[in-house]
């Protein structure tokens, strides 16, 4: 590996959802995934073949950008990756939603089982405590093409947790970060696109999360829910994948006040590499404002990095949480990004913008390592 390549930690990926809902075999190179999704499907000649039954094709997400070989090629050696299934009524855009909490629980278990199978194959490795974190960092000092990618397990919307009494079971399974909500109004509170706060069940859940040492992810909390969480919760917080409202308007992004609050709690904010989060003209609620292809390059991400650093006066609270392939593909990722391996280019852009090497390292991996290190050091 070139000496200029830094270890990169991606603080938010939906690997299992891509593998199971979109049928992506993430051990294959991105090019193979694109060919499978774009190619013409073969049809069996056997008269009893299932392929002779007709039905609508499930529309594909945009071209894939994330797979394990590209992560290794781009030295993205550690990921925070999700169990993701929220409860929401069926609609045109609810691929990753379930109708009931029991189904959400089942989907999250399926995501967990997929990660377990990848661990078993040696494709990824668990990071659940400080010794495992340090072992993974050592492995990535001199990586090979087989080095397992480290996994810190997160959950996007807490709907799969059927009650506070189930939290120890999830912790035992490896879960280390939870966002209470996602899109819509979910089991524990209001999320993106809605107005409102937490539901009463969120408080005993937070107590249970705090007790085992799981951190809270503020991403996707509706305005009121965000402040209710900070009022109640005294443990570590981060925003795994959020950009700045000062640059791109909309509830999905963090206001300056929120950025300051997270920094004040020693939290870290992960930058999202999505057109919807980088283009000020894009309004979540108004489809006419939404472009079919990206217009922004990775320089636009640096603007958000700059904004946060200026606001809080240092580089300690910024990280990456790209969300690549999180509901969009290459078509809506930054224009100069083809696969996740191109995150190394982003490191170069930071350098060219005048960030010192020490700061670049913090953004690429140091701040997230420090965050989880701190959180786990104080785990009861």
């Amino acid at each position, binding site marked *: 590996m070139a000496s200029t390549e830094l270890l990169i930690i991606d603080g938010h990926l939906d690997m299992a959802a891509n593998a199971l809902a979109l049928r992506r075999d993430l051990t294959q190179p991105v090019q193979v995934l694109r060919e499978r999704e774009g190619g013409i499907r073969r049809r069996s000649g*056997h008269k*009893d*073949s*299932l392929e002779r039954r007709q039905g609508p094709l499930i529309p594909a997400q945009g071209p894939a950008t994330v797979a394990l070989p590209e992560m290794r090629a781009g030295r993205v050696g550690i990921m925070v990756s999700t169990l993701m299934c929220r409860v929401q009524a069926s609609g045109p855009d609810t691929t990753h939603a379930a109708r009931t909490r029991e189904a959400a629980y089942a989907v999250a278990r*399926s995501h967990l089982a997929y990660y377990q199978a990848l661990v078993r194959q040696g494709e990824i490795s668990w990071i659940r405590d400080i010794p495992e974190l340090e072992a993974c960092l050592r492995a990535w000092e001199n990586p090979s093409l087989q080095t397992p990618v480290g996994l810190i397990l997160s959950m996007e919307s807490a709907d799969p947790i059927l009650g506070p009494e189930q939290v120890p079971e999830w912790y035992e399974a490896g879960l280390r970060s939870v966002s209470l909500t996602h899109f819509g109004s979910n089991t524990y509170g209001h999320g993106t696109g809605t107005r409102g706060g937490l539901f009463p069940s969120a408080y005993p859940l937070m107590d249970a999360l705090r007790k085992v040492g799981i951190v809270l992810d503020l991403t996707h909390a509706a305005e009121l829910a965000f402040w209710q969480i900070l009022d109640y919760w005294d443990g570590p917080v981060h925003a795994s994948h959020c950009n700045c409202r000062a640059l791109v308007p909309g509830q999905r992004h963090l206001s300056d006040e929120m950025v300051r609050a997270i920094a004040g709690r020693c939290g870290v904010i992960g930058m999202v590499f999505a057109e919807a989060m980088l283009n000020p003209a894009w309004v979540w609620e108004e489809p006419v404002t939404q472009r079919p292809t990206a217009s922004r390059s990775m320089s636009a991400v640096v603007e958000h990095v700059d904004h946060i650093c200026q606001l809080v006066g240092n580089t300690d609270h910024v990280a990456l949480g790209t969300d690549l392939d999180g509901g969009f593909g290459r078509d809506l990722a930054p224009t100069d990004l083809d696969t996740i391996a191109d995150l190394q280019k982003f490191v170069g852009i930071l350098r060219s913008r005048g960030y010192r090497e020490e700061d670049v390292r913090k953004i690429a991996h140091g701040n997230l390592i420090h965050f989880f290190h701190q959180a786990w050091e104080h785990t009861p």
Partner: protein
Amino acid sequence: MTTSLLLVDSHLDLAFDAIQLKRDLTASVASVRAHDPEPVIRSFGTCTVTFPELRKGGVGLVFGTVMTRIDPNDAWTATGMYTQSQCYGIGVGHLAYYQAMERAGVLRFIRTGAELDGHVTEWERDPETTPIGLVLTMESADSILGPECVPEWHAAGLRMVSIAHYGVSSYAHGTGTEGGLLPRAKPLLEALKAHRIILDVTHFADQAFWEALEVFDGRVAASHHNCRALVPGQRQLSDEMIRAIVEREGVIGVALDAWMLDPKWQRELPGCEQLAHVTLDAVADHVDHIAQIAGSARHCGIGSDLDGGYGQEQAPRDVNTISDLQRLAGILEGRGYTPADIRGIFSGNWISLLKKAWGEGE
């Protein structure tokens, strides 16, 4: 409702319907029909199975599947996977759904003869509130990563497995293909036998069917299978196959899919654009064909497979929901079946096979 006979349905894809089709199975069929988006109805048909409807139909024991397979060319449902790791993920998700429903008091896992006896007694006394019994089964063994994983699945409650499904699984040729067992089948079958797990021969390609019977000397059954003599096609059992299952003291659950009941069914058309010509009488024909070959009704059961990739349109035209299965009792009675025969077909034959398989019968 209190006069309903206890019914065992030996093949329902409940977890798939709840998770992949996003149906709330605790709701009424009418509610699910109202909530299903158009693409689901077009691909999977109109809902006929939910928990309240099972209770209404006296279906107190179901064989609920873990159902996922390797099938990269699955353009129809887009749920066929590329690797066993993916299948393991989906499979554990199905298991977890049943566990969550047990936690909610809707289902109850049945894993031993004692649990089975207790359940049947309780259900017959109180069919209104007793949880529905669940025997965990698996359609295509792709989510078993290898023979060393069989103990884990057995401990989770798995009691019957078909190692093939559509296409070629990791272990064997299945429906729509020609061929036998694959090299990895033998150690898997040995592990299944060692755990007293029943081999479900449904969905084997012909060659694989005969090879499996030769290799596997544990209990066998056909969870959802009709007769080739009445409806041509590889998906159905030949008379010779039926005889082989009977000789091994197996049970055959007859299925309600019009594709397996109605020779005029057009597979190339979506189910929602046609109407089955058959009624429940056709189901009785298949029961009768098996009984005539076996010389008794002791090898017949019901494995409706309702909502297993098809809906009301593709079921017998006099079936609105799964509760209509109860009407088979009258039809069989009209054909001269005794009350004891009918009880056997509805539940007794499957119950006695389970007990024998678990070493607790006879």
